[in-house]
């Protein structure tokens, strides 16, 4: 068994039984559901908006080459330097080289899942650069040396008490456990970092091909400051982030806010079309945009699952997923967790290593229903299962089903199996869940219902 599967199982078992974890996540997500439903209901037609969003992203992704060429030529026309990276290693090297050229020491970062994907902080710190995450949730998990728990709410697994203790230990400043006061501690720490950082680093939520803009969505104002004060700005973004038109944002920005956090609009939605332009009084002198492939083109080549590149990373599918809610974000061991992570990770990091994620699903379809761009998530999980077993058939599973088929098709065998089951069940009960139990994977946490004395067939035959 590969370590990815066994790690997943160990962590999932541990988290599913952790009552504290369960209560923290349930509380957080219950309030999310209430506000999201309220915001969805405010739309005149959320369903039509979803369909249009899905079609817009379809248009963007299915003409990706054309849109990327338009985007880059517009960006470059206004002095932005565009870089292309096929792999995470290339992207890291491009970014490190920009920092070396600028003789930079300190980097202030706003939230970017792509940077988690390529393990950027670790690489930059190894080269001696100081990297500070400015988003409050990201700052908290950075202080804890752990990855974000959730793509939108990085620190949702922590209580205020734990954050207070963390600030006390790492910053020597935690007046109380009030969220307000703790936020103000982070604000004070970050202010001076903004004013002195050499480079500001951001991600991107949407890239507009028509006008050559990158749109960044955030609540805190940290990305706004990151893109305003340092002399050099660096933006790392997946190639799938394109939207064809400027006006498409009028639909996507409120949908992202509604699906992601139950807000009518996220506090700051900002479109950047270049570094500081002639006549402008501030902004970076240089802007570098890195377009990252990192096996997205492999996902693009799978026409059946291509729509998973429509993902706008709102996190809605994580929030509604019964598996995510029980096992939590860190259990996945991936940058992108939850249903969408289970769909795309096998493509981005290898099918056989990550196929177990497609079984971490009840196939209830809540993810598909929650997705604002209508990605067919639960069917993609099934397709991943199919593809995994086609490329590496599971011998024992196949044998077990062949035997079952044989028994189920032959009435004599079937009635014999029934009798055997009825006789052996008391024995199974004695060893239930232990190493001797052949069904232990199932019975360790569940009861096998007792087999009735009389089957339906017997009842039918004996009825008066």
């Amino acid at each position, binding site marked *: 068994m590969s370590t990815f599967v066994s790690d997943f199982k160990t962590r999932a078992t541990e988290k599913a039984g952790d009552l504290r974890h369960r209560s923290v996540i349930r509380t*957080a997500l219950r309030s999310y559901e209430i506000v999201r439903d309220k915001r969805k209901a405010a*739309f*005149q037609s959320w369903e039509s908006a979803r*369909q*249009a969003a*899905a*079609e817009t992203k*379809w248009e963007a992704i*299915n003409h*990706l*080459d054309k849109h*990327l*060429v338009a985007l880059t030529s517009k960006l470059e026309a*206004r002095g932005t330097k565009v870089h*292309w990276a*096929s792999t995470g290693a290339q992207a890291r090297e491009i970014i490190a080289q920009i920092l070396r050229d600028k003789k930079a020491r300190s980097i202030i970062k706003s939230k970017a899942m792509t940077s988690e994907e390529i393990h950027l902080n670790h690489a930059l710190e190894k080269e001696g650069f100081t990297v500070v995450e400015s988003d*409050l949730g990201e700052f*908290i998990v950075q202080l804890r040396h752990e990855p974000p728990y959730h793509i939108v*709410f*990085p*620190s949702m697994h*922590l209580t*205020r008490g734990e954050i207070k203790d963390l600030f006390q230990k790492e910053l020597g400043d935690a007046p109380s456990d009030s*969220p*307000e006061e703790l*936020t*103000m501690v982070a604000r004070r720490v970050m202010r001076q970092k903004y*004013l002195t950082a050499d480079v500001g680093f951001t991600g991107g939520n949407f890239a507009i091909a028509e*006008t050559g803009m990158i749109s960044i969505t955030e*609540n805190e104002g*940290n990305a*706004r*400051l990151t893109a*305003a004060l340092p002399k050099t700005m660096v933006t790392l973004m997946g*190639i799938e982030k394109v939207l064809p*038109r400027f*006006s498409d944002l*009028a*639909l996507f920005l*409120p949908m992202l806010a509604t699906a992601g956090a139950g807000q*009518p609009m996220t*506090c*700051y*939605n*900002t*479109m950047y*079309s270049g570094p*500081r*332009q002639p006549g*402008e*009084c*501030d*902004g970076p002198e240089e802007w570098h945009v890195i*377009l990252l*492939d990192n096996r997205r*083109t492999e996902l*693009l*080549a799978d026409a*059946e699952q291509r*729509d998973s590149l429509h993902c706008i990373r709102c996190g809605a599918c994580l929030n509604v997923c019964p598996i995510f809610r029980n096992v939590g974000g860190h259990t996945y061991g991936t940058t992108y967790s939850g249903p969408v992570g289970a769909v795309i990770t096998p493509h981005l990091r290898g099918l056989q290593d990550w196929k177990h994620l497609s079984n971490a699903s009840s196939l209830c379809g809540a993810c598909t229903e929650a997705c604002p761009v209508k990605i067919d998530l639960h069917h993609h999980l099934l397709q991943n299962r199919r593809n995994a077993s086609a490329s590496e058939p599971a011998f024992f599973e196949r044998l077990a089903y062949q035997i079952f088929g044989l028994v189920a098709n032959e009435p004599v065998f079937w009635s014999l199996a029934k009798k055997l089951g009825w006789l052996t069940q008391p024995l199974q009960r004695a060893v239930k869940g232990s190493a001797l139990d052949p069904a232990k994977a199932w019975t360790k946490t569940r009861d096998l219902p007792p087999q009735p004395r009389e089957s339906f067939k017997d009842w039918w035959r004996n009825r008066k």
Partner: protein
Amino acid sequence: MSERENILGRIREALQVSAPLPGAHGETSAHTHTESPASHAREWLPSVGASVEEQFALFAKNAADLKADFQLLASRDELPVALKKMAAAEKWSRVASHEGELSNFACKALGLPVLLTDKGYDVQAMEKCDVGITECDALVAQTGGVAVTSRSAGGRALSVLPPHHVVVASREQLVADLPAAFALLQQKYAPDFPSMISFITGPSRTGDIERILVLGAHGPKQLTIFCI
């Protein structure tokens, strides 16, 4: 071959197989194929009301929900009074702003030392200002937010660095909804857009600690919108 050509080559190869259209489970498309799918967004987004009065009422309600302070003033003369009251209550001693008809009027009324951003500024000095006063491009009734740009609102930092952001706007800047706001920006600026366009919807906020709302995470703790 450059990485650009490598990536574009892989994309073109992948796209030789076409993908099924979204919503293929028997649903029909919401738009005709000659226009963009999002062109009817106005019909699906939250409704805004037909008259200007309704839209101002909606803006006021949305701004209040966002914990922004919206003051619709009956005349221009009310602005100095309202600003001075605010300055006294919050003990403003330094103001940051930019050149503009309304912003100049606001600064003159206050009579405090003003840092103007237009010809460049010292960022440490701006950090010490109590308030940033800017104009804007639009007020959006649908969201209760404002649209600013690096050209209309004194650069990139002025509307986020000081702890209180005051927007001075005029009534005709109200637009009904987001599609109208994007159309206005495109009409006003294309193709020479300001390098930053920002939709500000309420004061800076975070919910990163137990999903509890805290205002003023990194940007302004307060947002006031005066409309005259």
